[in-house]
């Protein structure tokens, strides 16, 4: 190799390396460029910019604050007179006749004083008048005169007051005051989930745990513990009993659906597997059936089955069962096509009958795949069951969707979300544990 040769070949090596890098750069930029272009198209198609404007931060705030706090309503009927007190404004949370929260004082003849703390104070005055001391702002006075609202506010009113001649809403950090011709209402907010343990009508309301567990009998009619458990269980506001049933129903749907599907799919998978099914047409037909039931999602099956079985967990379970038998059928038949012929032949050579050949030559081989898939689906079906329940009417999914759709009681929404997350995580670790137990961890 002469000197010139070497330089020449080095030169060509350099040029080809340059070309190589040019190509690499182009691909390196093309992929992100395509992605960015696609995302830009989506941003326009989905109107993401407009969405950012429309996004209701107010709703987000209501959601966020309501999910960890509750409000107590103090409501005066402006037509008939009389004031009522109710937690979340609900009948179940209403204070009994003649009782009222400790932060309300005075009387209706002179002035009913509602203490909102931090210097905020609302007074219900006679003749449908109201005064609200807002620290750093002054006192807002308002009165209903001949069906219209007269206030001491002058334009422009601050944006936390929403005023017309028939209605006024004052929203501050301490609470909210609403006044219309029919009602004057004050909300005071408290952190926590109201009446989570006991409703107001339960004698155990506002008692400490030790008091209930160790103290004297609170309700003379029954022992503390059983009484408390029963009052908690039958809590009319949070309905712990229904929630527990709902979670049970959800898991039940997943359980019945998954295992039912597995039991149904196993024999059918033999029909669809080339090794075991001599009839091509039958095999082809079976595979298309698998594809079909799998392609139609469980949700659609739910709708289809609703006519025959009506609302309830069974319908959801059947929907999961139908879809998953398609999925399992596919997975199992693929596993069956990959079984090791040697073992089957070994069993066959002893004169074993066909069923025995399957039992000993085939089943032991596919059991690990089968179990791990089934358990994996059990977990993911718990999630599906939540969604299906929201459609068929069953389980925790329904409670959640209805709680969200009726858009009040966000603390219930967050409670359900929390329960769902815990439920799915528990099912996840349970199925992982069982998988480890049954087929040995990680191969």
């Amino acid at each position, binding site marked *: 190799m002469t000197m010139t040769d070497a330089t020449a070949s080095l030169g060509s090596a350099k040029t080809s390396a340059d070309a190589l890098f040019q190509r690499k750069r182009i691909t390196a930029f093309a992929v992100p460029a395509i992605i960015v272009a696609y995302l830009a198209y989506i941003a326009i198609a989905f109107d*993401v910019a407009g*969405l950012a404007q429309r996004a209701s931060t107010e709703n*987000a705030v209501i959601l966020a604050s309501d999910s960890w706090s509750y409000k107590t309503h103090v409501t005066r009927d402006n037509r008939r007179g009389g004031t009522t007190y109710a937690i979340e404004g609900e009948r179940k949370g209403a204070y009994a006749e003649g009782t009222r929260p400790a932060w309300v004082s005075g009387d209706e003849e002179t002035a009913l004083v509602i203490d909102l703390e931090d210097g905020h104070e609302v007074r219900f005055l006679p003749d449908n008048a109201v005064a609200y001391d807002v620290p750093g702002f002054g006192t807002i006075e308002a009165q209903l005169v001949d069906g219209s609202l007269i206030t001491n506010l002058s334009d422009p009113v601050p944006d936390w007051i929403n005023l017309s001649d028939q209605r006024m809403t004052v929203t501050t950090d301490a609470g909210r005051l609403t006044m219309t011709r029919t009602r004057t209402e004050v909300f005071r907010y408290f952190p926590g989930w109201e009446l989570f343990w006991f409703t107001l009508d339960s004698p155990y309301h506002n008692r400490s745990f030790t008091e209930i567990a160790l103290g004297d009998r609170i309700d003379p009619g029954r022992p503390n513990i059983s009484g408390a458990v029963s009052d908690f269980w039958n809590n009319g506001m949070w309905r712990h009993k229904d929630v527990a049933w709902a979670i049970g129903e959800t898991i039940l749907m997943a359980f019945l659906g998954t295992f039912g599907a597995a039991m149904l799919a196993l024999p059918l998978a033999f029909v669809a597997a080339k090794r075991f099914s001599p009839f091509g047409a039958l095999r082809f037909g079976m595979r298309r059936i698998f594809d079909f039931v799998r*392609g139609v999602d469980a949700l659609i099956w739910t709708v289809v089955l609703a006519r*025959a*079985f009506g609302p309830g967990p*069974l319908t959801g379970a059947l929907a999961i069962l139908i879809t998953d038998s398609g999925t399992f059928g596919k997975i199992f038949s693929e596993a069956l096509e990959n079984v090791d012929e040697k073992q089957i032949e070994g069993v066959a050579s002893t004169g074993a009958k066909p069923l025995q050949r399957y039992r000993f030559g085939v089943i032991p081989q596919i059991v690990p795949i089968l179990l791990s898939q089934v358990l994996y689906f059990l977990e993911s079906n718990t999630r599906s069951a939540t969604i299906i329940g929201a459609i068929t009417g069953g389980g925790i999914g329904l409670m959640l969707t209805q709680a969200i759709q009726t858009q009040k009681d966000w603390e219930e929404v967050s409670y359900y979300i929390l329960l769902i997350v815990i439920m799915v995580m528990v099912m996840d670790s349970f199925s992982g544990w069982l998988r480890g137990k049954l087929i040995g961890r990680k191969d």
Partner: protein
Amino acid sequence: MTDATLSGPTRREVDRIQDSYMAQVRRRRMYGGLTLAIFVLLMVSGFMVADGRNAGGFWDGWRQMLDFPADVLSEAWEKRANLPGLLLKYFPALMETINIAAVSTLIGAMVGLILSLLSTRGLARWPRLIPVFRRLMDILRAVPEIVIALVLIFILGGGPVPAMIAIALHTAGALGKLYSEVAENADLKPVEGLASTGANWTQRMWLGVLPQVAPNFLSYTLLRFEINIRASAILGFVGAGGIGFELRNAMAWGPGRFDEAAAIFVLLFGTIVFFDQISSRYRNKLTEGQ
């Protein structure tokens, strides 16, 4: 192996093995029987509970199982002339569904990728935070899409974006976990080689890890895309736009619009099968080609 097999000590040895094996068999039969019994009990009682809490019972209902599909099909057949027009009409909604799935898979995969690298032993940027990122992925995975979607619909209003975000979050968790299982098995030698030149974390991951794991990652991502098409169709059912929403409206109206329902169904089903086939073919190639 002599003819002394039947002599005293060996005989006793065989007896011992026979006894202990019989004991093992009995134990196994008992556990097996017990497991089977518990399973059967759970299935049967579970079925009875579900049957009892359902409005219609199983034994009455299954005969009517085909009533509803028959209604839909007969009407769709009567109005079959409308079908091509309806397919065209709902095609944009289908595109929206596919787009939701595609974007959320894309975003979810990118987030999942970062999360997985951050939570894989040997690769993590901050090894101490591995449990934090793992937990984060668990939670993302555990929250059903529908929950996030419903909450976001409340804040953002209906439409595709809440569904997209919901699915993307779930995808990030699910793919993150699968990715990190793959990354765990990645060869660390190239990474160390890069580290020795003074490469920073991003460079080490991009140049040392990604080329190794890309085929597997891609295959999982395709599988997820397939799943996400269904998910996005389902979220339509609760008001998140796309073909699912149209399907629900048509189904809910009932007789009179079953031709629309059938058309949408055909679109949806066709799409799912189409992507299913494409992705499984391509995935096989990817994982075989290694």
